[in-house]
């Protein structure tokens, strides 16, 4: 379960940000999760809660900002929606798709006290 590693990475970014602003606590974290990102959100929530215990981010609310997947379809020569890997182009049915969006996993913002 690599979500534990991801949660630790998240926590580090959150704590770095909180310290830079001399925060006493982190109340919420906005996490951008692409629909094609290599992560299971429920597992990540569980792991983040676990690793945040005893830190500035203990009990912080995790807000998921979902971003849709998108790909460049070579036959269509245009950008198309891609809900998950292996799906076909919704226009032409081709799988000649180059993913261009939806693989991100980013800490966007934190709310601090």
């Amino acid at each position, binding site marked *: *379960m*690599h979500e*534990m*590693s*991801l949660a*630790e*990475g*998240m*926590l*580090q*970014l*959150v*704590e*770095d*940000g909180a*310290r*830079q*602003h001399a925060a006493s606590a982190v*109340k919420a974290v*906005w*996490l951008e999760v692409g629909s094609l990102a*290599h*992560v299971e959100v429920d597992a990540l929530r569980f792991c983040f809660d676990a*690793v945040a*215990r*005893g*830190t500035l981010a203990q009990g912080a609310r995790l*807000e998921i*900002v979902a971003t849709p997947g998108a790909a460049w379809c*070579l036959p269509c020569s245009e950008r198309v929606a891609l809900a*998950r*890997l*292996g799906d*076909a182009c919704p226009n032409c049915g081709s*799988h*000649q*798709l*180059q*993913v261009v969006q939806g693989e*991100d*996993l*980013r*800490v*966007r*913002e*934190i*709310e*601090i*006290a």
Partner: protein
Amino acid sequence: MCVTCGCGEGEVRIEGGSATGAGAPHAHLHRHADGTVHAHPHDAGDEAVHDHGHAQPHDDAHPHEHHHGHDHAHGHDHAHDHAHDHAHGHVHDHADGHDHAHAHPHTHDAQSDAAGVIGAVHAPGVDGTRRVQIERDVLAKNDALAAANRRLFAARGIFALNLVSSPGSGKTTLLVKTIEALGGRIRALVIEGDQQTSRDAERIRATGVPAVQVNTGKGCHLDADMVARALDRLDPPPGSLVLIENVGNLVCPAAFDLGEAHKVAILSVTEGDDKPIKYPDLFHAADLMLVNKVDLLPYVEFDVDAAIGWARRVQPGIGVMRVSARTGEGFDAWLAWLERGVERARARAAIVASAPDASEPAPARRHA
């Protein structure tokens, strides 16, 4: 649990190095992008996260220059009613390779909602909370370490591969046969990832090739830091081939860049031919798929063309080779691909080294 190295309840162990276990105080080696390594210890059972950055005292001096010349003590309290939509996320690189984002607290109303409604109030909200932008990838640290590994490979003209598959696909046998077939024409070195034991590294070393075992403990994948530490120990010579055998797992290794030139997925015919679509992340991340154990095709219901079709649904550009590590079938193409990769890596390093303004000269080997 060691939350620094992610060793979970088990332990990460680089063969030949000290154990980094949860049961004992253990030191973490940190390699910065410029190649400097420093260690700092932390105690057993350290539940609190310790800082990998600046709060942790460390000995090696490195300059911290902040190249943006505005200070943040602006005390104006005028209420202005225009919406601030400027995203301040200054990411600046330090000389030692770690960068961090400075989000500037143009604090726009703590009550602004998740959609980013902004009230332009330069003061904390009534409940004393405020929002600050971070805008950083969760995998940024791993990716920075992977980039450092990649720079080392590039400077030394090394061709590095990350071999990924489920357990039992025949990765180690494939490596042993590959090394034997190369017959010393190319210097090969191996990093072996497994949860525990050094059995695989021992199999590789029996061929006469240097190998370092990384035990991930409870971890399910290799990360760039583990590979960096293994590289410190392995010290691969210029122009060599570094083969990194990841933990047998079709899910987690997909997310972690190790600094390799290519991920190579291995799918054996004793598995299902629909694995590429059932585990798309890993095949999507791979540039080459080796269909292994093809000598067993007469005895199994595995449709090679179907497997290739599934793989190309998730990775249209994936190359495919049919091989048998047991019989050597298909090895001519595989070995030729490896040799081409090594030649290209060597050629690129030679060009960089001969350029008059080479900014990254090949680092000298520390051990002759």
